[in-house]
Every structure is written in C-alpha cells, then in structure tokens.
C-alpha cells in the first residue's frame, strides 16, 4: 500500500519536474545556451499568479494563459536584443551572460516582492482525490496533466509545424539550415521565447504547490539540470521521461534510504548516467 502511494507521489512530482525542465532542455539543445535565467523565470511566473490571485482573484489556471504570451514575448525580445550577441561565442560566455541577467532579475524581484516566502493558498482549496488507498492532491495532479499536455503540444509544434521543423533543423546543423533558407536568428528567438514560455507557465503551478521567494530560482534550475542529463538534451519527450524518472527515484529514495538521502541519490544517478549513457535516456548522440 505504502509503495503504491509513494509511486503516485513520485509520478505527480515527476510531472511537475518535467514542466520545469522542458523549456530549459529545448533552449540548451537548440541554442547551446545554458539559460541560468530559467529558474527565475519560473519564480517570476509564480509571482504573477500569486498577485493575480491575491489582488484580482484570478485563478492560477487562468494565469497560465496570461503568462504564456507575456513570457514568450519576454524571451523573444531578450534573445533578439541581448543573448543573440553571444550566440556564436563559447557556451561559457552565454552562461555568464544569463547568469548576470539572472542576478539582475532576482535582485529586482527581491526589491519588488521582498525576501519573504509567499504561498498561493487557494480558497477553497482544490483538495485531494482518493483512489482506493492512494491519496492524490488535485493541484499536483492538474500540474502533471498540464505538464503532459504542454509537453505534447511542444512536441507537436516541433514535429509538425514549419517553424518547429526549422527549430529541429537548426538544432541538427546550423550552417546547413541557414543554407536551406532558414532564418537562424528568428528561429533562435522563437526557441528562446518558447523556453521562457514553458518556464512562465510552470510558475503558476509551482506557486500553488511550493512557497516561493525571489531567490528560490536556483532550486528549480538544479532540478532542470539533472532532468536534462537524465532525459537527454533538447528532446521534449526526454524532459518528460527525465522528470518522471527523477520524481520516482527521489520518492523511493526517501522511502528506502531516508529523506535526507533523496537529493544525494538523484545526483548520484546523474553521475551514473553521465558515465554509462552520456546522451541521456532519450537523447541522440551528437545533437546536443
């Protein structure tokens, strides 16, 4: 019975993790930019939902629809105006750039929202559903379903639409794609916009579940790193699989080895994967 509950906990946690990591993985895979801003984008999306709910009574599920275009625009403009200048430079430079931008963003949030932890508490709460002996919180369940949906959408966009094919083409071979008439700069900006969008829409989900503070971005970023390595870079299904795997490993790790070792276990797994399957569970060699 306990194992069933733990498995369910791991799955819903994993869904949330997948949501956190999908955009990060996309940007890293396509642009070869390690976007340190990703964690703070999530937190910013969380604040958007928090204030929309507290001040205007807008439900966080609705905030997701507001966050999506806003964050896409933010990411698009940021890529076009700032990050694009660094795109051809070695990965360490763009990492430093987004690190700097992240410092600015998190300190701006610190000034605007104070360092106090805030938690979006729904009234009435969404409650829980019981499936036999297993109890599942509705907010996490919804987050998992939404993560699945968003990931599926992103996958469809990448595999079916013209712009999606262009993104994949640029990811495979930038020069060849450019020669085929793909506007690489445009593709980069759209990809970065999509990455920011995924971060921004995870925010309202996160704010319903975790207390947020302007400086909690790095925690989510750390998870995103592990998930990308687990699942494989730049692969949308990879982020999903990586997220679910991490959620389940952490949950059973806490059960078997005690909660103090759950995090250690996930990083041990990271090292093992890097050693035996560096391209990740679903990644393809050479594309990252």
């Amino acid at each position, binding site marked *: 019975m306990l194992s069933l509950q733990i498995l369910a906990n791991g799955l819903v*946690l994993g869904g949330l993790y997948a949501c956190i990591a999908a955009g990060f993985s996309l940007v890293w895979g396509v642009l070869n930019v390690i976007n340190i801003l990703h964690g703070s984008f999530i937190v910013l999306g969380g604040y958007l939902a928090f204030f929309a709910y507290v001040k205007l009574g807008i439900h966080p599920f609705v905030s997701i629809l507001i966050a999506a275009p806003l964050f896409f625009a933010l990411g698009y403009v940021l890529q076009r105006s700032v990050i694009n200048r660094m795109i051809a430079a070695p990965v360490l430079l763009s990492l430093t750039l987004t690190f700097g931008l992240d410092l600015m963003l998190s300190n701006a949030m610190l000034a605007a929202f104070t360092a*106090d932890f805030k938690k979006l508490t729904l009234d009435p709460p969404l409650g829980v559903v019981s499936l036999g002996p297993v109890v599942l919180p509705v907010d*996490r369940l919804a987050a998992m379903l939404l993560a699945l949906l968003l990931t599926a959408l992103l996958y469809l966009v990448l595999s079916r639409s013209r712009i999606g094919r262009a993104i994949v083409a640029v990811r495979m071979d930038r020069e060849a794609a450019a020669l085929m008439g793909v506007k690489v700069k445009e593709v980069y900006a759209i990809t970065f916009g999509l990455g920011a969008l995924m971060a921004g829409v995870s925010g309202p989900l996160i704010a319903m579940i975790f207390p947020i503070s302007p400086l909690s971005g790095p925690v989510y970023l750390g998870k995103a790193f592990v998930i990308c390595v687990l699942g494989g870079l730049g692969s949308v299904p990879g982020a999903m699989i990586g997220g679910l795997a991490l959620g389940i490993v*952490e949950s059973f790790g806490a059960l078997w080895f005690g*909660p103090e070792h759950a995090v250690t276990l996930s990083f041990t797994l990271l090292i093992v994967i890097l050693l035996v399957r560096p391209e990740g569970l679903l990644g393809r060699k050479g594309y990252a």
Partner: protein
Amino acid sequence: MKPFHLPAALALAAALATPAAVAQDVIRIGAPLPITGPLSPEAQKQQRGYDLWAETANKAGGIKVGNKRMKVEIVYVDYQSNTPRAVQAAEKLITQDKVDFLFSPFGSGAAKAASSVSEKYQVPTIAATASSAQVYDQGYKFLFGTFTPNDTLTEPLSDIVRKQAAGVQRVAILARNDLFPLAIAQEMEKSAKKRGMNVVYFEKYAIGTLDHASALAQIKSQAPHWIFATGYTNDLILMRKQMADLKIEAPVVTMIAAPAYQEWIDGTGKLSENVTSAAWWHPAVRYNGKDIFGTTENYVKAFRARYKADPDYAEASASAAGAIFQLAIEKAGTTDRIKVRDALASMKEMTFWGPVQFGPTGQINSLEPPVFQIQKGKPTVVHPPAIRQGELKLGVQ
C-alpha cells in the same frame, strides 16, 4: 577627471581610507548577515531588529559612555547564506572595518563558526539567533547568546501535552538536517521518551528538499498522535501543505520554528489552525525592562510604528542584543572591549526581552520561553500560566 575635482577626490579617498578617524564618537557594531541566498528572509528580520535598536538609541542622543554620549552605527556585511563566508565577514569587520563589537551571523551553525574569530581578536559578540548548547561549550569568553538551550522549548511543551492529552503516546519526528532544527528534534525525542511516549518515527530531511511526500506517507502509516516537524519557513509551509495533501491528521502537530512568523500563517492559511510551537519570546509577554525600550509593550509599539507589523522572536532578539550591548557599555562606562565583556558576563538586568543573565558558557539562562498555538489564525500563548491567553486545543486536520 577634470583637475579642479582632484582635491575633493583626494579628500574623499582619505576619508574612506581612515574610517576610524572620522568615526571617533561613534560605536560601531559589525553584523555579518545572510542578506542574499536562501536565508535572506532571516537576515531581513535581524536587520529590522538591529536597526530599530540603533535608531532608538541614537534618537535618545546615543549611548551614555562615562560622561559623554556616543552614537551607534551598525556595519552590515552580506555573507550570502554561506557559512565559511560568514567567518570571513566577521574577520573583515574586525580587522578592516574596525568595529568595536560584533553581532553573530544567523543561526547556531554560523554563530559557532564565527565565534572563534571574535575570540581570537577578543571582541565581545552577542548571538541573537543561536540556541544550541554546542555553540557555547567551546570555553570561549567573548561570546554571549540571547536564546536559552533547546530543551527549554521542548520540556514545557511536552509537559502540557502530557497533562492535557494523556492519550498521546506515538510521536513522529521529522527534522531538517541542519544544526538548530536537528538539535531541537533530538531534544524533543528526549523529552518524549522521558515521559514514556513512544517515538515511532525519527528522520532527517536534506536542506533544499522540495518534496516531503515520501516521509509524510511513512509517518501516516505509523498513525502517530503527535507529529513534531522542524525547519524554516519555506520547509514548514510546504510540509504543512503536503500533510493536508496526504490527509494526515493528528491530535497534536508541532512545528518549530516557523509558526512564530506571520509569513508561515499567511502561507498555510487555514491549515495553520491548532498547530503548536514554542519560541523564546512572544509579543504577548510582559516584562518591565531597564533597557532603552523599557516594557515589552513599549517595544511592540515602537516596532509597529516603524514597520507596521508585529515583531517576532527573531526580530525582538536582534533588538534585545543591541539593548544588552547598550546596558553593558553604559555599566562599564567605556567602550574598552575587556571591560564591556566583563559587564556582559556579570549582567543581571530586566529587559523588554525578559530577565537577562548569562550562564558560565555565555548563554542566557534566565528566560522562560512561551509555548503557543495558532488559534483562529493568531498565535495564542498557552504557557507559562502567567501570560496564558488560551487553553491548548487538540486536533489538527
């Protein structure tokens, strides 16, 4: 730079190079704080407490030193929630910023680490947020603390629960693996066992844990009567929420230290109801102090006027640390570090914070910390009887 700006620039450089020369009539106290990083909310509380004291003291003309009055200045250094950097920050404050006295960095772990620096340079240091006895048992002469040992929180709590809920037998403890939260959990285990209760679960969780579902599911399977969880605000908001997610109910749920903070109550909403906690101080206590703030009521009033909020124990402790320095300096009649240290060691004064007397290790031993419970969204003191505002209620769901 244009030539006519040069003299001004030189004067500025000279002023910057010799802070001691311009600051003769100022008492400088160093405060290394985790202003950025995960502990930043705690740093903000410390800062509010210190600033309120410094402003109040300066408004009254400053600290009386012999027959003159000296203003106070608090010098902050950010150590980014990183303990090794807290030690460096303390050393920098003493050697470069030439502060006269020091406040410890936040929490037991960092306070202990930095205490060796203040001991080396013989700088009287007051720790406003360090309770663990291990911080003070190093034989140091210059470290003083405003928190009583951890068992002074768990002992009265266990007494009340034993007295009012005889059926409470099975205790589950979940502790953040961090110096203070773990130490208080271990005290709780001792207090529970001493009273014949059965500790059915005792686990630690790592700092930065994002999910407590597994640990809580295990706790649920043990059907405990008393759940005792430790951590800081974000840990305990998340944990309380996940307890509800897993439909965990128990007659008694205690969380330390977060419920003393309004953010925790705001963050958990209705789930805060009937959660018990204990802290070293509460705005409801009533003392008639000889310090700059006087009565506890006066302190609370001054704090509200300045910050539009009620002070919690961490903020009050920071203010108390300042007020205690002031009492010691005024009694010593000098800013000589050795004499001020002796005045602290022999202090026996009433303050808004409570009676202040330091034991042989430097840790305060004169306080009786209140036990309280969140009732109708407000912290309600249930012990000690002298300041009780309500009875302990059973049942957390």
